[in-house]
């Protein structure tokens, strides 16, 4: 206590001029916002701007940017603007295509080409397929091919026929017939072309019979040999036809492919691919021609079989040579800047789509679809971290991709082994992208704390301010910002007064007269609403009246609950005195935040004391309706009491403190000074003025400390008093350090001007005591004793009295025991 010197007692209420920091429209040298040029710079975010610049400039691993700040602080606009500016001067990245992998059909291959050439190559391949189709059809229909093929076929067939014919001939010479049974071939003895019956056969001379049987056996063996050679002959035929097909195909398509190879000779991967295409073509020329294209071949009769044919695992040749243009950059003029609004797993890393066919899901490399990372590859990608985190597996996939520098498309089902059907595993594409992630601070710090990879991947922290100093220079910039937004949103021009009012409201919004809010979203909302009201009022220029109307309307729309609160006070359902004096009772002020709207309402705080063991009972805490900060504030009170008044004696009182008629929780320490006033009043048995309300937190030395929501609190009590009729005595005690936050409503300022309402800035508890009790607080002498006729003296006397009584009781108790 010794090191904090209480200031001189005697508090004067604040003058009206202290309650509101005006922006004088006359300070502006423009008529309306139409006179102002656009604001090209980013205002109020020097730290974030520098961070983003740094993040964009540094080309090292992990230097991605995390823009953190509350919603509406212009993160996306700033990051996008910077990325776009830089992207303009950067080169357009190459196109990416996926092509069939002839070696591993389930792993489509990515290839890249200069911007625009992806489309060209795709078209070239489509045209090639058409040309090949007709070239092959012509080649295979040519007389030469047909003749050579038939030649091979006939050679084999003749060989077989000849062998059979020879056997048949031999059989005939020996009076035997070679006949077909349903399952095979038999030799039978004949006479005059007729097969012998069993009896006729038996009647033959034995020698002849044996001879016939022997012949039959010989012929059977010969026939067996001929029949056994059939499969190998067929195989030979197939090989010959295959070789012929290769030769013809090579001749037919070689030239076409050479042309393409020439055209793309600068791209070795494309050339390799074209060689692979040629090899595949030569091997599979037959499949390439559609059945109906081939002469003399009937299409499948059964439509089901035809459809099943289409369902083969490997795509048809024409499909195999198609090009899936994954990323087409031909329209770009610089590096891409992509904002992915719906960053699902698949929208980020791409996906392999499927087609339903006959109840089965089929896919091939043409169904690979690009994700945002593909589109942003070689440029910039902007993501909202909250959305990324909400999407299953998206965050992990993003990190994995950034770590490996490879975009690998995997389906979630496959990844989790939920689906194990044959599907595609496209070969990954190398990734080079700068990511700008937008999010609020909480998410940044949580990720930073819990995700070990986060700090390695997002090394640049761009922290966005919500406010900036309200000085003359900034106010001019602010006016230009308003002008820019007015033009962007096609609003009516704002005149000087309207701009000034917007700036004032912006200060009020963040509860600080020396700062203005730079939450672009809130400003934009207010501008649009003011423009609406100007339209309603038939104004061509938005004036301060329109802005005020917009503010009032915003409040009115949100203030149903405040009305109910105040109504219940005015109807004496909630008991709040605004006149007279009471012992152990004071008006506290509590703020209620509902969405974007905050209001305050007075609460009655009461204290009762009796002899006890020195504990101050916080009734809210006993019923678990007190938040930790509130509880801490109450505990500070006992520290203050004991040290100040009874440093050398035990604190022998038991006090209870309560927020009367509070049915929900109490949090914050802004009522701790009010609680102390109530407690001291109860101890000293001195009444406190009920026409004043109190706010401010207190420390163990009795200093009053700043609190939040001072404007709302003052207005909350003012509204009640005004409704009951201002007596001229009413007012609010606020911490002196809150004066710079005052941006009060006009009617409050008027009441203060007219002396109907007072606002007392309090620095030290004793100042508040004097205002509330009208008594001298009293200064302690060198022994720490307060004069008896002062408030502090009364407190000290009561506490000393209680301590003595306590000691007496203890002695009596001990005597009894002995």
């Amino acid at each position, binding site marked *: 206590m010794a090191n904090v010197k209480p200031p001189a007692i005697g508090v004067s209420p604040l003058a009206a001029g202290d309650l509101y920091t005006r922006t004088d429209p006359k300070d502006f040298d423009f008529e309306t916002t139409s006179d102002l040029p656009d604001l090209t710079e980013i205002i109020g975010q020097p730290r974030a701007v520098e961070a983003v610049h740094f993040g964009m400039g540094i080309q090292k691993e992990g230097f991605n940017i995390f823009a953190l700040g509350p919603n509406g602080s212009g993160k996306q606009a700033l990051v996008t603007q910077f990325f776009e500016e830089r992207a303009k001067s950067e080169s357009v990245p190459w196109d990416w295509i996926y092509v069939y992998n002839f070696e591993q059909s389930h792993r489509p291959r990515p290839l890249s080409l200069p911007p625009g050439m992806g489309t060209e190559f795709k078209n070239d391949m489509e045209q090639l397929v058409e040309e090949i189709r007709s070239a092959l059809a012509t080649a295979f229909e040519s007389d030469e091919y047909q003749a050579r093929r038939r030649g091979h076929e006939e050679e084999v067939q003749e060989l077989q026929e000849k062998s059979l014919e020879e056997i048949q001939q031999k059989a005939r010479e020996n009076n035997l017939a070679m006949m077909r049974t349903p399952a095979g071939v038999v030799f039978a003895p004949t006479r005059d072309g007729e097969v*012998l019956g069993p009896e006729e056969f038996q009647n033959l001379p034995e020698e002849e019979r044996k001879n016939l049987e022997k012949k039959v056996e010989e012929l059977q063996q010969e026939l067996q040999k001929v029949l056994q050679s059939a499969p190998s002959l067929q195989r030979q035929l197939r090989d010959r036809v295959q070789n012929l097909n290769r030769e013809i195909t090579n001749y037919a398509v070689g030239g076409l492919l050479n042309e393409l190879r020439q055209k793309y000779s600068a791209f070795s991967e494309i050339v390799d691919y074209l060689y692979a295409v040629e090899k595949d073509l030569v091997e599979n020329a037959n499949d390439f021609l559609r059945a109906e294209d081939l002469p003399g071949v009937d299409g499948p009769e059964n439509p089901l079989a035809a459809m099943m044919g289409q369902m083969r695992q490997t795509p048809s040749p024409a499909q195999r040579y198609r090009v899936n243009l994954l990323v087409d950059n031909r329209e770009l003029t610089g590096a891409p800047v992509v904002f992915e609004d719906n960053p699902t797993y698949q929208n980020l890393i791409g996906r392999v789509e499927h087609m339903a066919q006959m109840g089965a899901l089929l896919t091939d490399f043409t169904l690979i679809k690009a994700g945002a990372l593909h589109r942003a590859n070689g440029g910039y990608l902007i993501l909202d971290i909250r959305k990324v985190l909400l999407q299953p597996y998206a965050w992990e996939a993003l990190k994995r991709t950034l770590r490996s520098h490879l975009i690998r498309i995997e389906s979630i089902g496959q990844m989790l082994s939920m689906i194990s059907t044959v599907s595609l595993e496209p070969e990954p594409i190398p990734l080079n992208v700068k990511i700008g992630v937008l999010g609020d601070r909480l998410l940044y710090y949580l990720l930073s704390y819990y995700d070990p990879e986060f700090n390695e991947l997002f090394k640049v922290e761009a922290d966005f301010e919500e406010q900036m100093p309200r000085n003359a220079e900034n106010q001019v910039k602010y006016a230009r910002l308003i002008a820019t937004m007015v033009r962007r949103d096609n609003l009516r021009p704002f005149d000087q007064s309207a701009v000034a009012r917007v700036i004032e409201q912006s200060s009020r919004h963040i509860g600080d007269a020396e700062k203005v809010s730079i939450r672009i979203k809130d400003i934009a909302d207010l501008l649009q609403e003011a423009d609406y009201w100007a339209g309603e009022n038939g104004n061509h220029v938005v004036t301060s009246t329109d802005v005020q109307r917009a503010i009032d309307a915003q409040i009115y729309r949100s203030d149903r609950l405040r009305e109910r609160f105040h109504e219940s006070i005015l109807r004496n359902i909630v008991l709040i005195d605004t006149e007279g004096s009471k012992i152990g009772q004071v008006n506290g002020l509590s703020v209620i935040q509902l969405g974007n709207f905050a209001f305050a309402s007075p609460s009655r705080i009461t204290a009762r004391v009796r002899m006890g063991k020195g504990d101050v009972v916080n009734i809210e805490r006993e019923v678990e309706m007190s938040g930790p900060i509130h509880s801490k504030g109450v505990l500070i009170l006992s520290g203050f009491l004991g040290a100040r008044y009874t440093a050398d004696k035990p604190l022998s009182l038991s006090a209870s403190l309560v927020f009367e008629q509070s049915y929900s929780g109490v949090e914050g320490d802004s009522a701790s000074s009010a609680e102390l006033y109530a407690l001291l009043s109860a101890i000293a048995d001195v009444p406190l003025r009920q026409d004043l309300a109190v706010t401010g937190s207190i420390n163990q030395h009795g200093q009053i400390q700043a609190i939040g929501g001072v404007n709302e609190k003052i207005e909350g009590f003012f509204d009640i008093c005004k409704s009951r009729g201002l007596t001229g005595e009413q007012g609010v005690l606020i911490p002196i350090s809150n004066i710079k936050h005052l941006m009060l409503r006009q009617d409050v300022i008027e009441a203060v001007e007219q002396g109907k309402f007072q606002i007392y800035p309090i620095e030290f508890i004793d100042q508040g005591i004097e205002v509330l009790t009208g008594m001298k607080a009293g200064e302690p002498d060198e022994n720490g004793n307060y004069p008896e006729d002062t408030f502090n003296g009364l407190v000290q006397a009561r506490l000393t009295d209680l301590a003595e009584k306590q000691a007496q009781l203890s002695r009596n108790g001990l005597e009894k025991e002995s």
Partner: protein
Amino acid sequence: LAKPEKAINRILVAVDASPQSQAALQVAVDLAARVEAELVGIFVEDVNLLRIASLPTSREISFYTTTLREIDSPSIERQLRAQARLVQRLMARIAARANVRWSFRVVRGAVSAQLLAATMEADLVIIGKSGWTRGRRMGSTARVLVVQSTRPALVLQRRIRFGLPVVVVYDGSVAGKKALAGADLVATRDSLVTILILAEDPEEVKELRREAHTFFMEREFTPQYHWVSRVEASDLIRIVKSEGCGVLILPTGSERLPDHTILETVDRSECAVLLVR
């Protein structure tokens, strides 16, 4: 389609279990549907086979596995019955699909003789060309029908569709006129119809051409005409092949087209041949 004259009321098709005879069956059904004729399928159980099977030492060589196994008549009979049932079912199915009146007969005896006898009740006979050796040459049964039958016969190598090119040999004979009428059977509006006029001198050519032109006047197709003074089998085979291997229609019993030429043509051609008599 040109409405053909109602000259064909009953079509006979000779069937066994071979793929070629199934193709013949299909063509027969298509044709029967087209001319609204009744279709008769005939399956001959070869009596010679049954006789062979009853020989004590008879063994057959399996066509596919080339192994030898004993046979007897009951098993061969069973197998033949099974084949017949199979073919009958097939016929029932495709005839029903084409809404064709049909009947199916199983007879036992020497194949050629039985078929020849059956052709007497039919206005057109359809038969697969090759024998069981699966070559391209004519089998013995087809040969008997070509040579001995008095009925028009369509000899097929494989399945054909209507609308294929048609080549008709016209020599002014009665059979030749029937050959022109035969074009109605197989040609459609899309068919390329070629009339091969077989005549000695230009005057006769002009006359025959006029006749043919008159005949085709109200048809949907417009034929083209070629003139040959004499013709060999190899010429016919070449011509029909160069026209696209559709159907070749030949008149029989004509002096200018001797039987041996016809037989050789049928034997060596890969295209379908319709013999009109």
